[in-house]
């Protein structure tokens, strides 16, 4: 990668006309092998112009503005920044250190009203690690604290979208979804059986159409009741973690009856009910490598889940191997799904544009298109291959440091 001499001049003059940041966010990437979902698709020798942190032009025949800073990709692949789903990035540091875990609550007064946005830690060491995996945005989800066995918790709370760009404020969109886990684990929190779980859910959604009172609450605090208003109106998606095919059918039926905007998560047996999911245009967040019959909820877990769902017309987003430290594995997981029949382009889309679309920010991120935020990654090879990696990562057009705590440890001890 080389920077034109002009960039040095501009940096020197930065204080005069406009801020340094703005200058740094205006440049062009040339000799780019562009790979992006959306209309641009694949361009073997393309140019991307970034102005004030946004993509202003991209394609094979793009005129370079006079004097613009050039980043030569030297034929390397350039993709949109990856968008991770089902993460706790910014909410976790060390899993075994409970004080560093901000993704869950044991409060008996807060469930649906729980909001991950207040726990986000921009200084988390996990963020640079994920960024070095090409990830520029993430959906941060709450989960459950089951330490209080008496607590009947229905909802985990509100998700958020974050930016992985270096800086003091990583919140991108609050209230990105309401998270609810059903199936075996969900039932365990609600009387130990699906028979009580689904009845309670249906009664609750019916009660939400009325005003909250101490008599009409279904175990929810007034704050929880209020937090669910956008779910009932269909403005906020309900993200349901569910695995078994029969449970998926029940959830689809619930969503139809209450006109909910549904997103399925996990959905290990989704391939068995792919047509029903597709018919309701419900998107699915999944880990395509989750093929272990680890519980009786997912006896049918299959490496072909992603390929079968996609072929049925379901919009899928692919996650990493956990919510925090292994989020970066998401691009390998997309590759593994491709090895089991998912079309190559769908593999990339499932970690870029699809999650943006599913969470309602496809007008801003997820593909290389004029007008979108300049979240871009230059790779030294196929972005889904473990032998490849990013050589440059941009968030909002800002070049990100290519280091993490882990790379610094490697440099300290790796020298011969």
């Amino acid at each position, binding site marked *: 990668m080389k920077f034109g001499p002009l960039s040095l001049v501009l940096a020197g003059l930065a204080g005069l006309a406009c801020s340094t940041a703005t200058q740094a966010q205006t440049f062009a990437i040339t000799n780019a092998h562009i790979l992006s979902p959306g209309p641009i698709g694949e361009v073997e020798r393309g140019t991307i112009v970034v102005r004030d942190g946004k993509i202003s032009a991209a394609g094979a025949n793009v005129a370079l503005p006079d004097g613009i800073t050039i980043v030569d990709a030297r034929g390397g692949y350039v993709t949109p920044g990856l968008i991770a789903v089902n993460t706790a990035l910014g909410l976790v540091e060390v899993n075994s250190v409970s004080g560093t875990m901000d993704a869950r609550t044991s409060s008996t007064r807060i469930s649906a009203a729980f909001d991950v946005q207040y726990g986000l830690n921009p200084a988390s060491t996990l963020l640079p690690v994920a960024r070095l995996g090409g990830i520029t945005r993430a959906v941060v989800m709450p989960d459950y604290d089951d330490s209080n066995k008496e607590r009947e918790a229905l909802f985990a709370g509100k998700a958020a979208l974050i930016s992985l760009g270096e800086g003091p404020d990583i919140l991108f969109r609050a209230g990105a979804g309401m998270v609810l886990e059903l199936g075996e684990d969900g039932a365990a929190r609600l009387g130990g059986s699906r028979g009580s779980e689904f009845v309670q859910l249906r009664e609750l959604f019916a009660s939400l159409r009325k005003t909250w009172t101490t008599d009409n609450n279904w175990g929810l605090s007034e704050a929880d009741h209020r937090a669910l208003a956008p779910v009932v109106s269909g403005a906020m998606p309900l993200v349901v973690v569910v695995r078994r095919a029969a449970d998926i059918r029940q959830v689809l039926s619930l969503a139809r009856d209450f006109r909910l905007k549904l997103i399925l998560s996990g959905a290990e047996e989704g391939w*068995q009910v792919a047509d029903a999911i597709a018919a309701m245009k419900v998107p699915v967040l999944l880990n395509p490598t989750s093929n272990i019959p680890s519980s009786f909820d997912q*006896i049918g877990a299959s490496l072909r889940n992603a390929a079968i769902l996609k072929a049925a017309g379901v919009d899928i987003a692919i996650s990493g191997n956990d919510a925090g430290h292994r989020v970066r594995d998401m691009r390998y997981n997309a590759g593994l799904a491709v090895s089991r029949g998912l079309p190559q382009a769908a593999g990339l889309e499932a970690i870029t544009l699809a999650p943006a679309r599913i969470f309602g920010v496809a007008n801003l991120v997820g593909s290389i298109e004029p007008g979108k935020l300049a979240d871009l990654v230059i790779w030294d090879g196929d972005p889904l291959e473990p032998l490849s990696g990013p050589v440059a990562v941009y968030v909002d057009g800002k070049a990100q440091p290519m280091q993490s705590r882990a790379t610094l440890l490697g440099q300290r001890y790796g020298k011969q």
Partner: protein
Amino acid sequence: MKSIVRRVLGQPALALAICISAPLGAAPSGETAASPAPPAPAAYPSTYRPRAEADTAIVNASILTATGVRIDNGTILMSGGRIVAVGKDVPVPAGARSIDGTGKWVTPGIIDSHSHLGVFPAPGVAGHADGNENIDPYTANVWAEHSVWPQDPVFTKARAGGVTSLLVLPGSANLFGGRGVTLKNVPAVTVAQMKFPGAPYTLKMACGENPKGRYGSRGRAPATRMGNVAGFRRSWIDAAEYARKWDTYDRKRAKGDAAEAPKRELALETLAGVLKGEILTQNHCYRADEMAVMIDVGHEFGYRTAAFHHAVEAYKIADLLAAEGTCVATWATRWGFKMEAFDAIEENAAILAARGVCVAIHSDEQGLIQRLNVETAVALAAGRRAGIAIPQEEAIKWITLNPARIMGVADRTGSLEPGKMADVVLWSRNPFSVYAVAEKVFIDGALMHDTSDPGSIYRSDFELGQPVGAQ
């Protein structure tokens, strides 16, 4: 069969020596000059029998032999369960089955030196949780093979990832977790039918957060790392005394004197086996400082650690490990789930390999065991980014020959050399690619997994009649 068992039983010390001397020719420290043990009476014997199969050749493939070379347009010939020939100009005998390997890759069978398949099987319900005898930190008396459930559906999934042999270990809740068992990854009804014939026994040990956390939280020792080490030392003192009693008895008997045999103690029998060099220690240990202490414990009592497992900070003491001849079995992608895993880096394996340490990529889980090739590619790429260029011809050893060394079976499997077991994988493409699929998996020359014949893929008893997923 008996003679084969006898022959291989005499070899664990040899296999250990291979592991020790291979990296940089580092001189063994001499603490545990393990002499070959006399063949033990075969308690709990292997009843594994290779499945008879026609002679098979894979022709015109790219072959990574795990001896440091790659053969393009090569042929591998298997007969009688053994590898007969590997090379460019190997004639295929008339009558042998010939498989076209054009555009495909061949490697040795993948070997996982750290697995809990069968002892923590799927589904992961309480009724199946048989991997941690976690009511006491000192359980060298238990044997993982007495917990293994051969119907664990994940054995088949691991085979689909090319895994032909694996070391199944007890969990890490205890200082001494018990004996591990080395298995051939074949469908079976009894664990004896899977036991790798003649593989040495191993002892699982665990440092750090797991034992001290498990017992400290119950108000008993160990509650600290120093408590862990005190527990180890006390046990080795007991083991040394136990070994002396038996030596005295054996000497008297040899002289023809009357002597009463000491009472067998299962835990001490295993520990004494370690002190005699017959049983290989597999030590779960994350932190560099702690591994260094465990090396000193080994020096104090005269045993050598075969491998540190997980060992995410091994890169900080690469030279010490190389000098000790201790192997490392680790991951590339797992980190941060507890304090002692916070300093894990992706290039751990590459740094170790460059400094002459025998290194393996292991799984420790049901997901990674299906794609150890991908995990190795991550480790390889991280090394390259850090300026450590390791060729694929070497890196393939991380999931073949080196785990075989850790398990003491490198003289029989782990590389493609004439005379070795015909444990072979035919990949759809370069195995360091995420898109590579293990199309055919041979175990002792028998085709045990074949994607071209999905109906032939074994389903465990548990999966029968259930809507299990397509592979």
